[in-house]
């Protein structure tokens, strides 16, 4: 449908589109910068003026995944010739890959990345699952002090979480939860749950209760009605909530930095720790960051249809 518009409205519309384009470019610039740096030769990473056109290489990713040391003297040409292509790139940089026997020693990055995946996926599943049940309860049943309880749940988000980082750290150390996956998962679930409950309650309220009532009359228990009817109907909301919870858990930095240092350390605190002393290797850091961006991008992309419906859900009454 095309409504009648005046010329000033058209002009305003064009200006708005231009503003959105500019904003989009500004927001995308850092992502472009990280992505391009991840494929740059080391010496171009900090060149002034910045290099825009260059021959991309994957050496930063090789450096990201391997343990290396500086070589004191040039590599033996025979060894160099026998090395696979990726090892040659390391020799080219005056370094050699550390090995135990014939096995290449991997850097800590895959472990840290895996930690991030474990913590983010499990905490998202728990937060969304618990949030869905809780929201259903709030949405469908008369609960004494419902408004107060919902406000209390929301109030857990009113302080920046970092405020409680130190006491949390002390408590965690006391019960032995620091530097553990479970510890981080509990923290992220607690953090995401309020968000999940509130978001899911909005979606639950939109599902007509006649759906379940029809199922109840048709011979199903409430639990069966919940799983057969409510959950499929809430899929959009669950997807939207899951994306938000996943992004929060995936990107979380402060708690991960304080609570973990080795075993359970996630990627966000790990990547900057690799800047180390001396001249930082920006291309390797960019490669790590670039890979770190991918899961969220893929997850969001897979759920994009649900997300689009999700954010407009409830905005329009049918």
């Amino acid at each position: 449908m095309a409504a009648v518009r005046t010329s000033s409205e058209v002009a305003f519309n064009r200006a708005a589109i231009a503003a959105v384009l500019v904003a989009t470019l500004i927001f995308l610039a850092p992502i472009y910068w990280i992505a391009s740096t991840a494929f740059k030769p080391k010496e171009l990473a900090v060149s002034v003026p910045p290099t825009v056109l260059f021959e991309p290489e994957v050496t930063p990713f090789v450096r990201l995944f391997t343990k290396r040391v500086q070589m004191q003297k040039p590599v033996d040409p025979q060894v160099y010739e026998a090395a696979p292509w990726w090892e040659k790139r390391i020799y080219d940089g005056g370094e050699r890959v550390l090995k135990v026997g014939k096995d290449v020693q991997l850097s800590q990055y895959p472990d840290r990345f895996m930690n991030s995946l474990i913590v983010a996926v499990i905490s998202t599943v728990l937060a969304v699952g618990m949030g869905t049940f809780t929201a259903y309860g709030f949405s469908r049943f008369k609960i004494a002090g419902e408004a107060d309880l919902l406000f209390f749940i929301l109030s857990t988000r009113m302080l920046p979480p970092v405020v409680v980082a130190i006491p949390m750290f002390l408590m965690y150390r006391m019960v032995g939860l620091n530097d553990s996956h479970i510890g981080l998962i509990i923290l992220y679930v607690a953090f995401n749950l309020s968000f999940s409950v509130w978001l899911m309650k909005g979606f639950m309220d939109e599902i007509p209760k006649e759906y379940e009532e029809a199922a109840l009359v048709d011979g199903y228990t409430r639990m069966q009605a919940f799983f057969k009817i409510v959950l499929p109907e809430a899929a959009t909301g669950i997807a939207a909530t899951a994306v938000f919870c996943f992004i929060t858990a995936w990107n979380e930095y402060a708690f991960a930095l304080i609570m973990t240092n080795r075993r359970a350390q996630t990627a966000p605190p790990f990547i900057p720790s690799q800047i180390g002393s001396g001249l930082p290797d920006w291309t390797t850091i960019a490669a790590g960051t670039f890979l770190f961006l991918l899961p969220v991008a893929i997850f969001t992309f897979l759920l994009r249809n649900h997300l689009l419906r999700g954010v407009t859900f409830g905005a329009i009454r049918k």
Partner: protein
Amino acid sequence: MTQIELRGIEKFFGAVQVIHNLNLAIADNEFIVLLGQSGCGKTTTLRAVAGLETIDKGDILIDGKPVQHLKAADRDIAMVFQSFSLYPHMTVFENVAFPLRATRMSSGEVDKSVREVARVLRITDLLDKRPSALSGGDMQRVAIGRALVRRPKAMLMDEPIGALDAKLREEMRAEIKRLHVKQGSTTIYVTHDQIEAMSLADRIVIMHEGFIQQVGTPDEVYSHPANLFVAQFVGSPVMNIAEARVANRPGAASVTVGDAPAGFEFPHRLLSKLNGHANGGLTLGIRPEGVLVRHDAAPGYMPVEASIIEPLGSFDIVDLKVGSSMLRARTKAGYVSGPGEKVHVRIDPEQAHFFDTASGKSLGVRL
């Protein structure tokens, strides 16, 4: 064979009593319509029978067994909702099959039952579609199919066609009637539409503010309304209601409506039936078709002036000035040519209803 009996049902929402001592016995195969305005307690009553609402007092008996403590799932009753409540993520087939999936029925039997119901409801070619692809009428056919497929003890319908547009509503009304005649099942049907109630019901239960006002066949509630509420709620156009005084004339009774200068002539035996209401507290009710209009003067007819004419196609509704109030008459289309025309009017005594003004109750006067 399913009889449903409601005994002394009371229901409160907080401090508000929404159902007052409701008693109703529904016979096997009977089509009962609960009729009333929104908030009269009809839907709450239906939901109580379904098991979706608890009751605070009384018994609900299905085939003589109290079921008020049973869960909805254990009452073997099917319900059709106004919103249809078809599950959007299932095909029409799966929607209809849904109640059967709760039983131990084999998938072959499920398939057979669904196709049988689909055939009866003429939705066979829709079975693979999603509800969102259906028209409103087809959605309701599917919803009815889902209710029928299990062969439940009773069918409950909550304004099943209220969400459809007028033409479709008429079609589906006929369809529901056809189904009931063909399949036969004890049915409780809730609506606020009196035409729906009249056309479908074996008996109509008219409710107002949580009380049953009258239970009767469509003819009974139309011809013998128990009180002013029923009189005005049933029938379209609405019945004329006016304060009336009755005077004794030689050989006749004269009924004066409102502040009219003269009275309408009624048979003399009316006087003996009014039980002291002749001089006060009497309300006359007359449907527009009981107001007889003619052009020329005749004995017993009163000269009046026409005010507003509403042409309704097959007939007109004419507002006639009687004193300071209006008497609505139903005439042949175009019988009264325009506002201001002088006509003569009489009230048909046989169609007149008399009510006690204070209580609103019918005096049961039949002439």
